[in-house]
């Protein structure tokens, strides 16, 4: 072994390179504050590695992206690898901000290190770009709708807003072209830029040496290896243990597959964009551009110009009170906005846990239509509940209308089915693929098919349904059960000018009673 290394050194001189790396001279007093760069380097390496391995299974097409991510989660170590990559992004943002605050507090951006500082800011922008592009890749509801918001924000860009949005989208709508584009940028363009920027950043760091403590101390400089290296690996191991704990404990989120027709979904950004998300709420309408572009732009410009705003070579904290106060106020504002955005959970996000009436109705129809004859645990086709079926709504609707077309020779001739029943079964199939049926009381199971067949076309409950008629989410606050029953039976009996058709001849007594009571109970 030793001989092999001797030979390798004789041919390559690699030990010289290693020595150059390890013997970096550090000013006296360099301590724990200067370990954050190494932590970032370690986290970024983990991110590059896990990302590279994830590409072994990921497929960047709208048809398969979601399925492939689910497949990754089912693989051995799949959740861990995806978890490391998912939570690693958050860790990097935290470490990056900490590193930046350290640099600002120590005045390390002062001459001759202005370009090092600028390359660090470019790295910050790049990291945020990584997280934005990576967010879309799982192609779940969160990914899709967050990207809709991102692209709409990009339209606020002064002058060519539409052009910017078009470049981000790739095609005329968010879809296959957006996904391949963001994927390519996320796995090729950005990593290449990242490596170049890191090499540049480290080169500049070595060229000027690290800034060291604010008040330079006297004494000899010391080598990076092993004492500073020991501090670095201690910090790195603490952070890595935390990251592994996160990845182990919490499976990275994956919601239902992206559904561009689902208007009920309220997108939420990743936590480090929540501040911006919250800021947007304070600037409605035409003022939105202030929150989306001007405030972040000014902040970025301030940071970029910091070495020229904060002149003078003195790095001592008391001499830089004004600048440090501005930075502190900015940081506290971001923290407060992020907390407010965090706490401001939209109400519909909570109600998403329960199944919609349409989904429950779809389950009843699926049983009535004998879907479960084949779609069962031991059946000819995949079971409907708990299976990985992630087909789009059109595919499912087509399959329900004519199963023969999609699965030739596999089943009995199809029964005719009403378009709205098919839509309900499709909604059920998509829901059942990710959540087990929680079970609902008999009255709900009685009215759900009625609702899904007759009411949902015009009325909404909790965000699901049509808009021709009024929203019935809180109908119980307006009418009692008796009035509602008479109304549903024959609206003209209550109001001669009513637009709604009569349902008295289409529903039986039990159904009329149940739906009237249900609506009256909705307060």
């Amino acid at each position: 072994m030793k001989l092999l290394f001797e030979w390798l050194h004789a041919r390559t001189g690699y030990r010289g390179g290693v020595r150059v790396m390890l013997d970096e001279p550090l000013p006296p007093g360099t301590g724990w504050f200067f370990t954050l760069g190494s932590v970032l380097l370690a986290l970024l390496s983990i991110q590059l590695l896990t990302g590279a391995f994830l590409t072994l299974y990921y497929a960047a097409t709208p048809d398969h992206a979601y399925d492939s991510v689910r497949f990754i989660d089912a693989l051995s170590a799949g959740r861990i690898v995806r978890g490391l990559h998912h939570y690693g992004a958050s860790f990097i943002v935290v470490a990056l901000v900490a590193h930046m605050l350290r640099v600002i507090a120590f005045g390390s951006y002062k001459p001759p290190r202005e370009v090092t500082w600028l390359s660090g800011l470019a790295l910050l922008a790049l990291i945020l770009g990584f997280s934005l592009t990576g967010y879309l890749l799982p192609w779940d509801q969160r990914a899709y709708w967050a990207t809709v918001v991102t692209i709409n924000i990009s339209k606020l860009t002064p002058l060519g807003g539409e052009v910017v949005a078009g470049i981000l989208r790739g095609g005329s709508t968010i879809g296959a072209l957006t996904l391949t584009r963001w994927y390519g940028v996320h796995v090729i363009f950005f990593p290449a830029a990242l490596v170049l920027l890191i090499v540049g950043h480290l080169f500049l760091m070595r060229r000027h040496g690290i800034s060291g403590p604010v008040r330079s101390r006297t004494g000899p400089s010391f080598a990076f290896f092993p004492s500073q290296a020991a501090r670095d690996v201690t910090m790195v191991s603490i952070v890595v243990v935390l990251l592994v704990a996160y990845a182990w404990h919490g499976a990275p989120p994956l919601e239902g597959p992206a559904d561009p027709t689902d208007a009920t979904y309220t997108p939420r950004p990743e936590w480090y964009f929540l501040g911006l998300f919250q800021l947007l709420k304070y600037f409605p309408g035409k003022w939105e551009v202030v929150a989306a572009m001007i405030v972040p732009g000014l902040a970025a410009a301030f940071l970029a110009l910091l070495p020229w705003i904060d002149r003078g070579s003195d790095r001592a904290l008391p001499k830089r009170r004004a600048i440090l106060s501005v930075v502190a106020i900015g940081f506290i504002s971001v923290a407060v906005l992020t907390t407010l955005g965090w706490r401001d959970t939209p109400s519909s996000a909570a109600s998403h846990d329960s199944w919609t009436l349409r989904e429950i109705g779809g389950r009843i129809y699926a049983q009535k239509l004998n879907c479960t004859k084949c779609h069962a645990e031991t059946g000819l086709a995949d079971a409907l509940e708990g299976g990985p079926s992630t087909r789009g709504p059109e595919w499912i609707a087509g399959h329900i209308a004519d199963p023969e077309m999609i699965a030739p020779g596999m089943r009995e001739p199809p029964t005719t089915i009403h378009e709205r029943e098919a839509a309900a079964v499709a909604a059920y199939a998509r829901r059942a693929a990710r959540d087990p049926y929680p079970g609902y009381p008999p009255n709900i199971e009685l009215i759900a098919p009625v609702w899904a067949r007759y009411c949902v076309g015009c009325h909404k409950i909790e965000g699901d349904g049509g808009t021709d008629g009024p929203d019935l989410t809180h109908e119980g606050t307006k009418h009692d059960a008796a009035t509602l029953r008479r109304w549903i039976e024959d609206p003209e009996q209550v109001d001669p000018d009513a637009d709604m058709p009569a349902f008295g001849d289409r529903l039986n007594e039990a159904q009329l009673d149940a739906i009237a009571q249900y609506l009256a109970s909705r307060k």
Partner: protein
Amino acid sequence: MSHNAGSPIPTGRRRALVVFVNTIVALIGGALSAVLGAFALGPRGASQTRWSRAGTTADLKPDEPVARVLSVSRVDGWYRARARETVFLVWDGEKTIRAMSATCTHLGCQVRWEAKEKKFRCPCHGGVYAADGSVLEGPPPRPLQTIDARIESDSSVLVRL
């Protein structure tokens, strides 16, 4: 870079630090390699099989292999593909049915049933099998693969592929 590594740290402490740094680096590197290695190996376990309908006994002749082309769903990672597979069904005229794969065990060509000779012949390298799938002549190393099959009460035939 003429900086001297001979630092003011005492040798014993220096050695301890070197061991510490190398251990941590080896631990993190090793753990990461193990996780990523396991991940890269891919899915384990055989692919799932499922009962598929292959017509009814009314389509079959007693004791005569009949070829049936079935469309089976194959799970390939996250991808579901429909593959066409040929199986030979041999019905005894009553309650039992045998199913054999039409794939020659030599190099994977599709064998044909020669009704006059009552033999399966492979067109590629001259493999010959008897009606029960056993090898009669030629290079095939094993008999034709048998496949689970059963007859339902409504006389439909199911095979597991």
